[in-house]
């Protein structure tokens, strides 16, 4: 983990180890993780087996209304992933390679900092821009058009894509920064055109970053609750919305838990699949 620690002659570390033989140092962290993290996740797993029984809970989760919403969530998440990729990839390229170094650093910091903007605030703001009598509607109605994007699927995709763009940019950016620009020269010296170099050298080498970005965005979007609730309305529920409704309004906790477990599995599986597919073996 820490580089400095590894550089130390091994013999010297002993005192530090002895000083840290205070196992209590790990206690608050372990307790927090155990009681407030592991137990809740276990509770969801266990609850999904209760009441009507595991078979009924899980069948209900993938059929009927929640089944439809489940499929709908996958579609919406995939679209959000594509939209944010289209926006993020050129941006990461600009910041990582085109822009002057200092400006690039400032821009990437700004991207990270934008994650600080509250989700609820974003949701409300998009409602004001995309909703009835919002910015777009007001402008469009002067031209005799009626464009109301929220509540609605387009609104959900716009709002969630805006939140996901930074999550997509960061892994791609770090892959681009690691790309050695001298490879371009090498390819050119071997007679490759710049387009060919781009397609055959550059893209394959930054693909793992793209994969990591897609995996992150897809899984995060799948589990989203706040933005789809604000921007989606009743017809455009996401899986998160139905979990919340079942748990809080109708108190079907077991059913909500079963859906949660499915969401968890989809998230983890898609994460692993996308990650594997784009990992190139050159980087190990």
């Amino acid at each position, binding site marked *: 983990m820490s580089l400095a620690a590894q550089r*130390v002659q091994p013999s010297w570390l002993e005192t530090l180890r002895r000083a840290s033989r205070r196992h209590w*140092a*790990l206690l*608050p962290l372990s307790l927090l993780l155990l009681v407030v993290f592991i137990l809740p996740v276990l509770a969801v797993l266990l609850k999904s087996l209760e009441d009507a029984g595991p078979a009924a809970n899980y069948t209900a989760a993938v059929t009927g209304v929640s089944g439809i919403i489940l499929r709908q969530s996958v579609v919406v998440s995939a679209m959000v992933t594509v939209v944010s990729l289209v926006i993020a990839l050129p941006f990461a390229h600009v910041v990582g390679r085109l822009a002057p170094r200092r400006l690039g650093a400032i821009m990437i910091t700004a991207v990270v900092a*934008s994650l600080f903007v509250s989700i609820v605030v974003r949701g*409300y*703001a998009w409602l004001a821009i995309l909703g009835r009598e919002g910015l777009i509607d007001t402008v469009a109605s002067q031209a005799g058009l009626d464009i109301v994007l929220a509540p609605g699927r387009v609104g959900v995709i716009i709002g969630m894509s805006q939140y996901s763009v930074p999550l997509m940019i960061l892994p791609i950016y770090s892959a681009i920064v690691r790309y050695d620009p001298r490879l371009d020269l090498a390819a050119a010296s071997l007679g490759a055109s710049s387009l060919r170099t781009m397609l055959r050298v550059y893209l394959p080498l930054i693909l793992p970053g793209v994969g990591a970005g897609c995996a992150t965005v897809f899984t995060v979007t799948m589990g989203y609750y706040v933005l789809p609730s604000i921007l989606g309305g009743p017809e455009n529920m996401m899986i998160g919305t139905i979990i919340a409704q079942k748990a809080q309004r109708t108190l079907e*906790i077991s059913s909500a838990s079963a859906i949660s477990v499915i969401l968890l599995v989809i998230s983890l599986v898609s994460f692993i699949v996308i990650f594997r597919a784009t990992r190139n073996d050159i980087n190990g």
Partner: protein
Amino acid sequence: MAKRVRQALGVTYGWLVLLLLYVPALVVIPLALSTSPFLVFPPPDYSLEWFSQFVADPTWVNALIRSVQVAAAAAILATLAGLAGAYYITRRKGWQSGVIEPLMVMPLVIPSIVFALGVYTLALQFGLVGNMAALILTHAVLGLPFAYINITVGLSTIDPRLELAAISLGAGPMRAFTLIILPLLLPALFAALTLSFVLSLDETVVALFISGDRTPTLPVKMFSSITYDLSPLVPVAATVLLLLTVMSVLTFVVLRIMVSRLLRLRQG
């Protein structure tokens, strides 16, 4: 020449994306100053009416205070737990780090709605819905990975043998830690505090489940209001939340500069 044009185009695109990331949220500010009780943008006219209503409404003000209290407590907890854990694990490369580190990353990977449901289930079981301590602990866990990572990175920039030097000069291990490691770690600690504070301040999903109907945090009250009655006080609350976020980040930046200035000023 072609390269310069490409660069200019690229940078312009970059600024456009940054505008997309920041500007939409800013529309809440004119909305907060709107005269209309409805969500109309652009606003017909401007006034401070909703601001004064917000300040006079104890449910909104209490939600704000509650949010800040929870965030502060959660940030301190996450930072302390992260500090103890990071210190222990970087100094001791045993099996513990193999178990703890993946666990620390899990809260980042598991969808917050699943986590929230789990916490809710437990809270129902033990009658903790609406309990502020439960909310604080949960938020602390959500901030923990960020605190831990920041502090670990901070520790890795400090030569661990400085501690040995201090001990060899007669300082006990505790003294060596507080006099040598802690001051050098201050920037990382500030970062950990700020991150986990802002994270808790904005956290909505878990809070929606367990903060309870009568004791909502500010984002929860905003969310309920947006989905039910769309109160004209929502944009005011949103503006306040934005301001709070900006202020905590600014505080962090100022503190950091002060610390490094403090070290540099004393060159003599």
